[in-house]
Every structure is written in structure tokens, then in C-alpha cells.
């Protein structure tokens, strides 16, 4: 789901904080009296759709709080005789979700940081240094990010089984079945999107600062680290939020490149809650809620950054 947004903001406009919606006048407030009926219609419609969108989540939460015997007997739309967090405890202790969360963090935290570092420098080189072929470089990264993951998964799988790693890095002695493999692929695959968004963002920064730095004799590193990067904080925050969610949500890489169940990231591990012959859907609901909770919390807390990340460059500024 990672598609870079269209063109950069035009250079005319200096970098405003992304996401902060421009204070826009609402035209045509005049004939409000006649429109009131339409307004209520809009409200009713939006409210109905919102509730319909929320319903599956609420149902999952409700189901996860009720014992299987009860919902099997009375169905999900019955009043509860007992609500408990037993399934959460079970999901955590019996299936060791704590460990899976740790695996996810081991992948997502360094993943986001390294991706942002490498992407921001590449974007800086593409957008702020007058290098030959910078456009080509941009295309190289962008197109790479748009490929379906399954196109590259087979050769990567073969490659990883052939790359030896010392025991202290991977107990499988190869890159395959180690978190390193997932981390590396995540970084390489997400680089494209970040480069694209950051390059677009950096183009909107005023050039004068950079030129002043060049006059002062600042080298490439100083211009990147001390002149450009501080101005990119809003974009970096937005991308960081978004990338964390994406890496957290990833399902395929963990599934294909890890064979030891103990190493799975939490999203891929969710499958383990399903029994061989019998699936307790309420337990699965609890697991789903546990897995979904961090992303929802991140979204609600950092909503502004989150949306800014997606739309950065999507609108023409």
C-alpha cells in the first residue's frame, strides 16, 4: 500500500508544516436556511457509514471479552452474562505474544530509523545537489517501491538461504530464518517511498539557505545534517509514523523469510492462534485486538502526522 504521492509542492510556496490544513474559507454559507435539510441528510449518511465502519471493530472487542461457550450458545448479539479479559491473558501467556511484539519492535524500530536516514540523504542528494542523473535515481527508487512484493520474493528467498551468517547473528547460520533478512528487505523496499516523499518535500525548502551554506564553505555532510535535515522534521515525523505502521503491519516478509515460529513478528504470528482443527474465534478476536491496538493508538495520537505522511506531496501545496 505504499505509493508515493504525485508532484511536489510548487517551489513558490515555502514549506509549511504538512497536515496543518490550510485555513480555508467555506464559501457560500449564505443560504443556510434552505440547506438545513440537506445538512441533516449529510449528517445521517456520514453517521450511518461511520457506525458501519466501526461495527466490525466493536464486534471484535465485544467478542474477545466473552467466553466461547456463551457466544457459541447465544450468538454474538446476546447480552453478556460475564465479561472478562481471560482471552487476552490467554493470548499473551499461552501463545507468547510478548515475544512476537519484541520481534516486531526489533524489526520496525531500527527499520524506520535506518530507512529514514538513508532515504533522507538520498532525497537530499536528488533534490538539493545538482547531480547528474538525479531524476533517474528518483525513478529507480520510486519504481522499486511500486513492485508487488511477490515479484521479488522468490529470488530473495533463494538468496537468503545462500548467505551465511555467524551464529551470534543468526542461529540458523544463514540470512534465511533470521530477523536480519526481514529488516533488510523492509528497509530496501520502503526506501523508495521515503526517498520520493522526502525529495518532494525538500524541493519546497528555500534554496537561499543552502546557497548561503555553500558560500560559507559547508561540505555536503554539513549541508545535509545541519542545514537541510532540521527543516525536514515535520516530513520525517510524518513518514516515521507511517512507516512504523507499515512495517508493523507487514505480514508477508515474516511469513516467507522466517521458519522458526519463535521469530515471527506479531502480525504474522497471529495465524498461530488458529487451532489445527478447531478455531476459537473469540481468542482470535482477542489476538486481533491486541495486534490492532498499537496501530490504532499510534493513529489516534499522531493522526496529524499520519495523514500528513500519506498526503505529503499528494496535494500540490
Amino acid at each position, binding site marked *: 500500500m505504499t*505509493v508515493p504521492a*504525485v*508532484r511536489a509542492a*510548487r517551489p513558490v510556496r515555502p514549506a509549511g508544516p504538512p497536515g496543518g*490544513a490550510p485555513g480555508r474559507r467555506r*464559501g457560500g454559507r449564505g443560504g443556510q436556511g434552505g440547506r438545513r435539510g440537506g445538512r441533516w441528510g*449529510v*449528517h445521517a449518511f456520514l453517521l450511518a457509514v*461511520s457506525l458501519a*465502519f466501526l461495527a466490525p*471493530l466493536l*464486534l*471484535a472487542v465485544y467478542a474477545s471479552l466473552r467466553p466461547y461457550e456463551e*457466544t457459541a450458545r447465544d*450468538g454474538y448479539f446476546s447480552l453478556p452474562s460475564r465479561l472478562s479479559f481471560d482471552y487476552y491473558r490467554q493470548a499473551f501467556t499461552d501463545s507468547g505474544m510478548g515475544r512476537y511484539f519484541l520481534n516486531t519492535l526489533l524489526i520496525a524500530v531500527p527499520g524506520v530509523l535506518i530507512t529514514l536516514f*538513508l532515504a533522507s*540523504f538520498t532525497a537530499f*542528494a536528488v533534490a538539493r545537489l545538482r547531480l547528474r542523473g538525479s*531524476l533517474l535515481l528518483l525513478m529507480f*527508487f*520510486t*519504481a522499486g517501491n*511500486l*513492485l*508487488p*512484493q*511477490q*515479484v*521479488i*520474493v*522468490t*529470488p530473495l*528467498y533463494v*538468496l537468503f*538461504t545462500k548467505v551465511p551468517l555467524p551464529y551470534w547473528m543468526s542461529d540458523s547460520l544463514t540470512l534465511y530464518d533470521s530477523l536480519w533478512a526481514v529488516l533488510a*528487505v523492509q528497509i*530496501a*523496499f520502503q*526506501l523508495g517511498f521515503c526517498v520520493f516523499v522526502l525529495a518532494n518535500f525538500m524541493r519546497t525548502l528555500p534554496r537561499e539557505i543552502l546557497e548561503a551554506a555553500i558560500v560559507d564553505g559547508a561540505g555536503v*555532510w554539513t549541508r545535509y545534517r545541519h542545514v537541510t535535515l532540521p527543516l525536514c522534521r515535520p516530513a520525517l515525523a510524518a513518514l516515521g509514523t507511517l512507516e512504523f*505502521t507499515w512495517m508493523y*503491519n507487514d*505480514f*508477508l516478509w515474516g*511469513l*516467507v523469510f522466517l521458519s522458526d515460529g519463535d521469530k515471527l513478528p506479531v502480525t504474522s504470528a*497471529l495465524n498461530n492462534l488458529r487451532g489445527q482443527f478447531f478455531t476459537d*474465534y473469540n481468542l*482470535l*478476536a482477542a489476538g*486481533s485486538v491486541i*495486534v*490492532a491496538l498499537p*496501530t490504532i493508538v499510534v*493513529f489516534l495520537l499522531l493522526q496529524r502526522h499520519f*495523514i500528513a505522511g*500519506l*498526503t505529503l506531496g*499528494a*496535494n500540490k501545496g
Partner: protein
Amino acid sequence: MPKTAARRAGRRGPRRHTRRDLAVLCVLLGLPILLDLVLVWGPTMASIGLSFTDWDGVGDIEWAGLGNYTHLFTDYPQFWPAVRNNLLWLAALGLLAAPFGLLLAALVDRGVRFSRFYQSTLYMPVVLSLAVVGFITQLILSRDQGALNALLGSERDPVDWLGDPDLNIWMILLAACWRHTGYVMILYLAGLKSVDPTLKEAAAVDGATERQTFFRVVLPALRPVNVIVGVITVIEALRAFDIVYAVNKGRNGLELLSVLVTDNIVGEASRIGFGSAIAVVLLLVSLGFIVTYLVQELRGEERR
């Protein structure tokens, strides 16, 4: 275009980079390029190469010519259903989810009260992983305990929403749309906020109705957003995998190209060559869209 001229001039001038600068550039630009080459573009090329071979991943690689492809097109019963399902996926996201997302964005953008609440709620499914969406789908649609059957009161004669191969893909598409709509909505919402309000005012002065203004003035002004939404929709449809894999590993009516690729490498019989051939089909389709998109981008760059 004075800027381009200046750029050209700058290039012809003496190099401005010191040795230290060049070292920094080589390392910090080389590393991401290397990563992308080795882990993205290299494997893409390798997929193409391997698709012409017969290989199980261990023994010798044997040249198979077009054998994998003929086998795929003529003698692999899951292939055409998978293609059909991918196309259905594209149609559902493009014809249902995307217009619905646009409608919601247009409504939320009218500045009704609580629009922040609507916006957050409608967007919420997007932050869920597709695997979680798959599990929630089962909670609602499973035959014996599912909420939908309970709601319809059909416990006596339960509908097997996810087990019936004629029915399940539609249900899964609904779940996919649930998640895609919010994504499209957010993109359009940002686009709508950036549309110059004077455009609308001008249209209103000229006597255009609200609908005319929207379709003839606002929507064309949103062209860049339309392009992204199109690309996202196509890519999502081609990448579709997690939901069906979470539901039933993509069997029994839920075949997808991505599932077939995965099955051929993680499955017991690891058929690397054959799996690659399916991946190449996926690549060719997506490449068509990617190239179109990039050409547009490139034109935009040149115009600047």
C-alpha cells in the same frame, strides 16, 4: 526555465565537491542504491531469469524455455481463477471503494460538524493490518458463529459466506473495500483542501450548480490526486494477499496470483522456476501501470 539554464551552467563549471564530500556521497548514496539493487531490482531480474528454468531450489538449474509459461496458461487449474480474482479485486477497489471514498471526502469536506470524528472513524480500518482485517472478516462471516448469520437469523440454514467458493470472493472484496475506502478518502480530502476556493466561487458566479461545479471544476483540478488514487488502487489489487491468506490461505475460490507465487516457494514442493513465472506475469501487469505513472511524473518534472 532560467533555473534549468543555471543548472546546466553549474554543471559545466568546476566541480564544487571536495574529496571529503565525494566520500560522503559515495558511502551514503551508494548504500541505499546497493540495497535497492541487491534486494529489489536484482531479484526482479532474477525472477525473470528463473522463470525460464526448472528448479527446485536445491539441485541443478535446468533451462526450461517457455515450459513454465505454457504449463501455467494451459495446465494449471488455479491460474485463471486467480487472474479473474485479481481483476475482480481491481474492479471492486476501482469502481466501488474509490468512488465511495471520493463521495465521503466530498461530504466531509463540506465542513459539517464533527467532521474530525467522521474522518478518524472512516480512516481507522486503514491502520489495521490486512491480516487483522482477514480475522475480523471471519468473526463476522464464519458459518456457524458468524455475526452476519446471527443477524439474518439464518442459524437453521446457515450461509457459508467464506466457505462457498462462489460467494467468498465477494465477501472478501467487501472487506478489502472497507479498508480501501478510507485510504482514498484521506487522499481526496487533502486534495480538496488544496483546491483554490476562488475556482468554486467563480463557477458559482457563472451559475453552475453544486454538482456541475464538483464534476466540471473541482474534479479536474484534482487530477494529480486522481492519478495517485489510480496507482494505489492498481497496486493494492495486484498486491492483495494478506486478507485471503489469513482467511483460508487463498484456497477454495480465493486464489490470487500472489498466493500462487507464495505457495510455490513456501509449500512442500518448492518450485522456484514455476513460481517465478507467475511472478513475472504479475510483474508485467504492474510494470504497465508503473511505467505509465512514471512517464507522467517525468513530464511533470520537466514542466517545472
